[in-house]
């Protein structure tokens, strides 16, 4: 996306949307939920595209981030904004336990992460004194009023999650364009060749995993304070893995803004169109979407929509 378009979109997002939808809690709630998915989708795409590792367990980071932040705010009185960032840190730390999984090949890594997600979920259910057990945590502190603006209501929440998503996307983009990004791209096919020119490949992959976990953790933490409720089944629900993957694939996980666009499109269409039709099993459409994308346009919708000369198309990778 070029600069002008980006600034225009951001202006609409930061100013236009609150002005137009500010009074409509339902619509804002949907948009916030869609952006939450978008945040995880960007983090997932970062790991998949730059790190070269597809994960089926991002719900793990989401859940750990949510719980870390909620517990810090509730039991230790940490201010909510700080707790949210610490939620991300918590998720990042939990990803360190997953570093050994980096040497595994695609499917094995994807499912090893899934195993971690299950383990964290069970831990959250069992550590009742800390996490409230299966019943979960209620009345998690909402976002406070800062400089006269109440961030605890829907509009405030919207602005926070919007900022998180934008920052995440910008970070993803910055890495992608740098020599680190080039090295990461090169590592996919020829890791040894990159190592002999001095690229610390394992460290770079680890950095991508930790970063992806951090972003997802922050988004999870945001969500906990926004809806003020948490339980293990919700926090670690597979929806936090499946929806972002569908969003990223649909929007194009090799692009930066694709996952965001994909999340908005998929979530809103799913909630507004399919859920009323098929109250049970509407997520089936996600499955159809995933399959269709893989079969017809593995790069996602955004690269398919762009009309670019052949030379640039090659650089549409990563």
């Amino acid at each position, binding site marked *: 996306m070029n600069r002008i378009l980006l600034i225009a979109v951001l202006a609409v997002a930061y100013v236009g949307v609150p002005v137009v939808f500010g009074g409509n809690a339902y619509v804002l709630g949907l948009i916030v939920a869609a952006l939450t998915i978008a945040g995880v989708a960007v983090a997932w795409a970062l790991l998949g595209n730059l790190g070269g590792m597809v994960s089926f367990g991002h719900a793990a980071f989401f859940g750990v981030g949510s719980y870390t932040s909620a517990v810090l705010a509730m039991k230790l009185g940490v201010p909510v904004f700080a707790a949210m960032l610490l939620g991300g840190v918590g998720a990042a730390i939990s990803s360190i336990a997953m570093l050994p999984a980096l040497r595994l090949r695609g499917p094995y890594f994807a499912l090893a992460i899934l195993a971690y997600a299950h383990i964290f979920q069970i831990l959250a259910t069992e550590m009742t004194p800390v996490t409230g057990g299966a019943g979960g945590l209620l009345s998690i502190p909402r976002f406070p009023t800062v400089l006269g603006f109440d961030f605890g209501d829907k509009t405030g929440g919207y602005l926070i999650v919007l900022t998180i998503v934008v920052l995440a996307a910008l970070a993803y983009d910055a890495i992608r364009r740098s*020599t680190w990004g*080039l*090295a990461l*791209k*090169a590592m*996919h*096919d*020829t890791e*040894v*060749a*990159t*190592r*002999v*020119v*001095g*690229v*610390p*490949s394992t460290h770079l992959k680890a950095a991508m995993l930790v970063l992806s976990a951090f972003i997802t953790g922050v988004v999870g933490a945001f969500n906990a304070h926004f809806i003020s409720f948490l339980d293990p089944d919700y926090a670690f629900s597979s929806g936090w893995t499946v929806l972002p993957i569908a969003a990223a694939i649909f929007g194009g996980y090799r692009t930066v803004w694709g996952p965001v666009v994909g999340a908005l499109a998929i979530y809103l269409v799913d909630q507004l169109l399919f859920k009323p039709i098929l109250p049970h099993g509407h997520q089936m459409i996600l499955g159809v979407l995933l399959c269709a994308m893989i079969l017809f346009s593995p790069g996602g919708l955004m690269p398919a929509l762009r009309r670019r000369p052949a030379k640039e198309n*090659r*650089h549409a*990778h*990563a």
Partner: protein
Amino acid sequence: MLTLEGVQVNFGGVQALKSASFSIAEGESIGLVGPNGAGKTTLFNVISGVVRPTAGRLDFRGTSLLKLPEWKRARLGIGRSFQIPRPFGHCTVRENLLVAQRFGAGKKDPRRVDEILDILNLRDKADRDATTELALTEHKALEVGKALATEPSLLLLDEVLAGLETSGKRAFMERLAAVRDRYRLAMVIIEHDIATIAALCPRVLVLNFGQIIADGSPDAVFRDPEVIRSYTGETTLAEAS
């Protein structure tokens, strides 16, 4: 500069290197020859860190390399090209060099990339995709270029001439000599073409079945009956020099 002592490499039941011991001085050019399967590439793999030896010492300017991963060795100044070129995918030629330079040993002078492009005659292909738009000679040149971009003090070149026809070989040879002279590097070159080796390297090591069987000037080495036997199975003089 580089010292190997008693280096041994076992792969399962096969002993690829039996007990290699030799030293390389700063700025020296050494040819490494031997029949296929003698262990030449394994030796390179040991020095660059792709393979861990099962025994032996390996020191570079006083530091033991044994515990260092490949990328740390690259940053110390050991550069290496692969026999089968492995360009960085979805990147241009220039980007390939930039990545190598960014992570390599050197001072990151932006002009160095252009210098390398010129020396290796890759200037007009600088912005082409390295995996899909290069001819064989250019692939080989890029392999050397990537290793060079890291600003090594020791350059390991694995059969860079393989697959090129005679005139292409000569041109490439001249470029290699220019590289060596320009950057004052130590080089170890694996090559089958005896003429090239004799012209480029004042010292030749011969490897056979994982052992060094000769170490000296090209003249001496290629008349050594042991060496001749390793290539031809006989002790009569070959048309080697």
